[in-house]
């Protein structure tokens, strides 16, 4: 495993672990999701350089566009959770538990 692989694999894994285990604020969950997406973006844009397939270079931009849409939706839900629950604490979301 090269240094490059180690970099984006560990970036993805650490932000995934952050999303799974650091459950206080909704905004920090959104930031973790965004950093997962950014590490995927870096990996997807280095892949065509390493394998020399220039037809693939459009794909990272497509992925970035979708992750921006996702971040926008997340921020919209941040606003709506602040309006309905009063804050963005994730432990306030306990109305539906079994």
């Amino acid at each position, binding site marked *: 495993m090269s240094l490059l*692989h180690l970099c984006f*694999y560990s970036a*993805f894994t650490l932000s*995934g672990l952050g*999303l*799974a285990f650091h459950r206080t604020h*909704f905004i920090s*969950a959104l930031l973790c*999701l965004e950093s*997962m*997406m950014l590490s*995927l973006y870096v*990996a*997807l844009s280095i*892949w065509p350089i390493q*394998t020399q397939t220039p037809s693939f270079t459009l*794909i990272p931009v*497509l*992925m970035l566009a*979708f992750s921006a*849409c*996702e971040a926008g*939706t*997340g921020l919209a*839900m941040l606003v*709506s*959770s602040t309006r*309905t*629950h009063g804050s963005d604490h994730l432990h306030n*979301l306990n*109305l*539906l*538990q*079994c």
Partner: protein
Amino acid sequence: MNPHAKLICTLSLITGSTITISSNHWVMAWTGLEINTLAIIPLISKSHHPRAVEASIKYFLVQAAASALLLFSSMSNAWTTGQWDITQLTNPTSCLLLTAAIAIKLGLAPFHFWFPEVLQGTSLTTALLLSTVMKFPPMTILFMTSSSLNPTMLTTLALISATLGGWMGLNQTQTRKILAFSSISHMGWMAVIIIYDPKLSILTFYLYVLMTAAVFLSLNTTKTLKLSTMMTSWTKTPVLNATLMLALLSLAGLPPLTGFMPKWLILQELTKQEMTVTAVIISMLSLLGLFFYLRLAYYATITLPPNSANHMKQWHINKHTNPMTAILTSLSTTLLPLSPMMLTSI
């Protein structure tokens, strides 16, 4: 909700599902899943109630993480093999990560905790969409990659979800949560067979969609959200309640009804593959499900409560019922004699 916004969301749902099921490239499959996730969120949170907002937040976080995990698994596969083809998933680590991502998307146990809560926070029609349409794209990805997945892991996931789906459904009084746990245990039945006979798994999924749509549409006609409402709903629509009982027993998999067909064929295929122990365990676990379906059916038709009713009376209204309910209910009760034809034509 604004009809234009609703139209756009529905069209995006159809587009996203079509993109995923017709794609051959991992990035296109991921794109379809993302479109699906982004399109269902306004439908979940359309009644601006705190419960709906909470359900949409939970759904969004889980699905976004699962999509990212799916793209990560295909990307690590592409780094080792140079392939972006869906059917060419060969790296074992990527296969495990993909199985986890699809299990999160489908609500297979032990990744199922979001599913009953999200269903509880939405309306009955959106719950129907979530448990049928939203499961179709991940199911097709599982179908296309079924040759390279790990059989031990999938069988374990399937047995755990059949157990937990039956077991946790025993304790519920809300119909949407009961149907969510029934969906989890049906997903277990589909996952146990996907390696050995992928087409049978897809047939099981179609029949599950048919039966669960019949049940959800019948419940939506009488707006039944909990068991105590169900006890008095016979005053509203007596005939519909009788057919609802048949649809529920079909979902449980009792022999003269449609729901027996997938269970029968799956048990036969598992026995052919010399997995007799798995077949015995999973057929025993369907008894747990049978208990809560029977309780639903019992409350739907058979009894009056012996005490005086302490809940609001329901009025008999001549409301127009959806003709789809009749078609789906009759299909979900009478399709068993056609099983040889369906088995050969699928």
